[in-house]
């Protein structure tokens, strides 16, 4: 509440703190359930029916169904959880990053091979023209 969030000015990043964790709880619990094969089978057989077991918000459910990876994070998802949904779809961490950054899988892989995203210009939201 009054605890100041000194990490809120980092661009393109969600810090998974208590507020986000609370918001994303049922979404994240759904995602982690896909760790087990029997749950993956049930989800893949009928996504809507499987999702009914998790009382998440409609926009979270919608983002799951649409595989809107960034929206999932915006709505309280955490990458270690959402990556379980991605794994179910055959998307590994690197390709998921390609999608989330909007770069696409190949350009992202090339960036990584060239040493990754530089920190200069990527420390503060204001450097991204955000506030």
């Amino acid at each position: 509440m009054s605890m100041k969030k000194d990490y809120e000015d980092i661009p393109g990043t969600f810090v998974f703190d208590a507020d986000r964790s609370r918001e994303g709880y049922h979404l994240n619990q759904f995602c982690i359930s896909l760790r087990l094969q029997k749950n993956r089978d049930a989800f893949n057989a009928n996504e809507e029916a499987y999702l009914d077991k998790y009382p998440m918000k409609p926009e979270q459910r919608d983002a799951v169904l649409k595989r809107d990876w960034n929206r999932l994070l915006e709505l309280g998802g955490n990458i270690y959880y959402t990556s379980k949904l991605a794994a179910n779809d055959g998307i590994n961490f690197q390709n998921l990053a390609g999608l989330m950054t909007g770069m696409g899988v190949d350009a992202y892989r090339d960036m990584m091979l060239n040493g990754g995203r530089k920190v200069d210009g990527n420390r503060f939201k204001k450097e991204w023209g955000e506030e």
Partner: protein
Amino acid sequence: MARITAGVGVSHVPAIGVAMDTKITDQPYWQPVFKGFEKSREWMKEKKPDVIFLVYNDHCTAFDASCIPTFALGCAAEFQPADEGWGPRPVPVVKNHQKLASHIAQSLILDEFDITIMNEMEVDHGLTVPLSVMYGDMTPEDEWPALVIPLAVNVVQYPAPTGNRCFNLGKAIRKAVESFDEDLNVVIFGTGGMSHQLQYKRAGLINAEWDKRFLDLLTEDPVFASKIPHVEYLREAGSEGVEMVMWHVMRGALDEEVVEVHRHYHVPASNTAVGHIILENKAA
């Protein structure tokens, strides 16, 4: 008496485990990653630890969001490699030194560390990848050459324990080990990192300069390193770079002065900067 003789810092990137499990370590992409562990594997053979105290984090595998311990100490007899969504890694079951583990748990709680005791736990790549890179290829039929005491640290939900807390925990672990009446050579691993961000629009961040300074500080000025605030990891080393707080537990368990016997740094492995260091106590 048991004693901690050396510390190992090492990344635990899941893709490194996949590369070993699928036998593609000699591909050009992976060759330089594994080259840097050749000396480490020799060192392990010479050093022959009886027990590895392995500090790692669970990646929403054994722990879901219902229960999030800051420090969870594995006291079970053994730990099965977990299915993280693509089947369990084909590596040996991890066996504990159960008496030492519960001795450490008791000692830590009396020293005012608020440990969670785990008598059942699966272990994910955070624990098994460091064993794999340090020992080389193993099948489920093999046995890890050392017993392993796992300590899982929460670094997923903010806040992780502070660097200072981790450093002091390392000291308390050392005290606990040294009060155990069996002649055991214990090596402590701190794992995770180095710079990486897996999520959202800034994914792919790597800060080699910061990582190298972290490795330097770890050897030369560990107290200063342990004071680095969370926001610096998050900003400079990426949101998942905060895993590096776990290296302070390892460093805190060693002497003030150590010898750096090996270092390895390479970018990239998947999304991550791979870092690795071996530190020995001088007396050891």
